[in-house]
């Protein structure tokens, strides 16, 4: 949503001005401050923030100092909401000090993650004083930082709940229940897409999608009757087609999106109508 746009109830959102590092920026009232910063290319490191999900506040990297009565109070910008007169500063000595320690913790927790290494290096942290994790059985390849984005996307966006947190504290891992392949996985790959450290892996092998990180859960793919490519998880394709109203004609429904487009274009040309036909 861009500033000034009406929300879903049709009521225009109030505009406010926030100050970041001394410069003023427009924002919607109640907007997540980290979002304002991202939109204006102000660098604040973050791992667990995703605009389409509720604020979570777990990675603790997006700390900013809220200026109030001449004092600064440290808080996470992904849980901070824009309000008139809000003033924050980034990269204060205090924030830098704590963030460096956090980066060291990340380097120890996800030593194989190039993303983490690069991000930490951008903030001057290239080494960690803490014992690096080394677990050869880790299905996430010692790259996971437990930001929870995959779990939340699976649960809150896809409504699948195929993966979740197992154990607690330092023993927490993400996987399927009982580390068994699960029927709840659509194979949509949202988890792969949202993972900030590229820890989640999946692979398409012929007619099957293998969720390598999630107990090798296997999801059947659907084949295009035109080009013979396997183009989408079967369950997801069926569910999506079922939602189209009026439904697609049978001979179009069995095609992949690319072939579907070609087919429709060809039909249009052959019909010579030059306008939109009815393909329902």
């Amino acid at each position: 949503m861009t500033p000034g746009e009406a929300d879903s109830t049709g009521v225009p959102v109030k505009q406010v001005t926030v100050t970041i590092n001394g410069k003023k920026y427009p924002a919607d009232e109640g907007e997540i401050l980290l979002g304002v910063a991202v939109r204006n290319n102000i660098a604040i490191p973050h791992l667990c923030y995703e605009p389409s999900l509720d604020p979570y506040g777990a990675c603790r990297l997006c700390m900013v100092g809220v200026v109030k009565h001449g004092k600064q109070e440290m808080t996470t910008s992904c849980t901070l909401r824009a309000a008139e007169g809000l003033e924050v500063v980034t990269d204060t000595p205090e924030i830098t000090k704590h963030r460096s320690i956090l980066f060291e913790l990340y380097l120890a927790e996800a030593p194989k993650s190039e993303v983490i290494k690069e991000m930490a290096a951008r903030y001057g942290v290239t080494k960690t004083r803490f014992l690096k994790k080394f677990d050869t059985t880790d299905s996430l390849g010692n790259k996971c930082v437990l930001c929870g984005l995959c779990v939340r996307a699976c649960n809150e966006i896809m409504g699948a709940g195929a993966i979740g947190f197992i154990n607690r504290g330092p023993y927490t891992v993400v996987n399927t229940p009982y580390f068994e392949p699960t029927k709840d996985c659509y194979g949509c790959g949202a988890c792969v897409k949202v993972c900030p450290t590229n820890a989640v892996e999946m692979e398409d092998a012929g007619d099957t999608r293998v969720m390598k990180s999630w107990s090798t859960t296997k999801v059947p793919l659907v084949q295009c009757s035109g080009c013979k490519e396997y183009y989408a998880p079967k369950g997801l394709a069926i569910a999506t087609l079922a939602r189209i109203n009026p439904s697609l004609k049978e001979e179009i429904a069995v095609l992949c999106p690319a072939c579907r487009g070609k087919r429709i274009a060809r039909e249009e040309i052959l019909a010579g109508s030059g306008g939109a036909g009815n393909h329902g």
Partner: protein
Amino acid sequence: MKIASAADLETARQAGLQKLQPGKPQIAVGLATCGIAVGGNKVYERLREIIERDKLDIILTKTGCIGYCKEEPLVNITIPGKPLVILHKVTEADAEEILKQAGKGKVPEKKALCRIPSWDHVTGCKIEYGKGFIRIPLYEKVPFFEGQQKVILRDAGLINSEDIDEYIAVGGYAAAMKALTGMDSETIIKEVEKSGLRGRGGAGFPTGLKWRITRDTKADKKYIICNADEGDPGAYMNRNEMESDPHMLIEGMIIGAYAMGASEGLIYIRAEYPLAIKRLKLAIGQAREYGLLGNDILGTGFSFDIRIATGAGAFVCGESTALVASIEGRTGRPHPRPPRLTDIGGGLYGYPTDLNNVETWCNVPVIIMNGSAWYARIGAKGNTGTKVFSLVGKVDRVGLVEVPLGTTLRTIVSDIGNGGANNKKVKAVQTGGPSGGCIPFRLFDTPVDFENLNKAGSIMGSGGIVVMDEDTDMVDIARYFINFATGESCGKCVPCREGLKHALLLLNRILAKKGTQKDIETLALLSDTIVATSLCGLGQTAPNPVLTTLAYFREEYDALVKP
């Protein structure tokens, strides 16, 4: 019987007084979990066998715990016209003698801990037991009890907690009657505000203000919750409050619900407290029967009920947002505040919710009954009232201690607790459990209140005081608490999950004499970051044991590492 008027309450009170002083010898065995653990049940069974066998005209009953854990099992004897006598360290073998003496209107004086000629149950009810047994020390002369002031524990160990009549006998539910029939919401909230009562769960937030915020939030429905997830190692005040006087909690919640306009209450209690759960269920059932819970309470038209939600005993579920998640059936993980529980959308099932600790609720009836001015005179300015502490660890007199806030650590540990066990020198105390800190002996003149404990680097917490003596290794203590906090971290945010793990690894290395000065520095820096950046109170306070031992016992760290 439904109580619908002051006259009905008086009828129940008279019935209760009959049970409390039945006009013949009565023996009450202290059967809270602590008493049972040291054989109280066996004593009770043995007494029952003999009474049945010899067809004695002696009444046998149960009571809660008066708090002197060191002397348990405790047994009360009441002979009509004589003082109530508390016997200590009673075993099955003593049963015959106790009954023989009681039959003759006497008590086995050698077993006696103290006598109570009369007892003030604070809420306007004084029970006169009688005179005699002058060779037995008076209750108030027993050093353990001498410095204490019983307000919350006023009934504990003196009434049968499984019988609502006995609670009513000592002034119970009179405050609910007073509030519901004669006070409006604003008057009650003003009273609680003026009393200065602060949350007893550890944070010390003004209770009246929290009530006001909850009441003023507009919503179709509101909840109140009692936090009974007492999880600090060595803390068991709330357990005893619920086991020994469950109706006090229920009464406090009724008054709170009425003041805030809540129709439903929950008690979130850990499943590891089976006896407290059993007694609370029993008490809730009795209160419903008497029309003190349910529809049209006391005939006032006000409706409110309480149910119990059990938790699996995760320390983090004492945190308000995690607690609500747990009740709703989700994983007990905190979420960032706001929204707070009192906000629309923030509380239980999204409704505004007021959450107070067991002991906070327990303070309510006495404030309503005796007035805020009476209450505010107890304790110190800004820290009014009494607080129950569990005094444990390497201290001579282990037990539950109730003192006015502002009492010094010295009074609690050295006077009431009689210093170290086995004549060892006390070195420090840990207050506030794993979130608290170690306070060295030289700071024992610190008054125990919310602010002064913070200044010393510790916290009040829910009220655990663990005593350490000269033999205690302070670095090992730090490790113990960090190990606890690591295991109890929910694992959501990095500083708590990863930071505590590495703090534990560093402490292990230092204790194994493989550490360096650099490791100590890293540990200190890491601890600071965990405090500053953790998501919830668990992480923000977990490094306190490290930070305080580093501040006060640095030499013990230094002695373990290479220079």
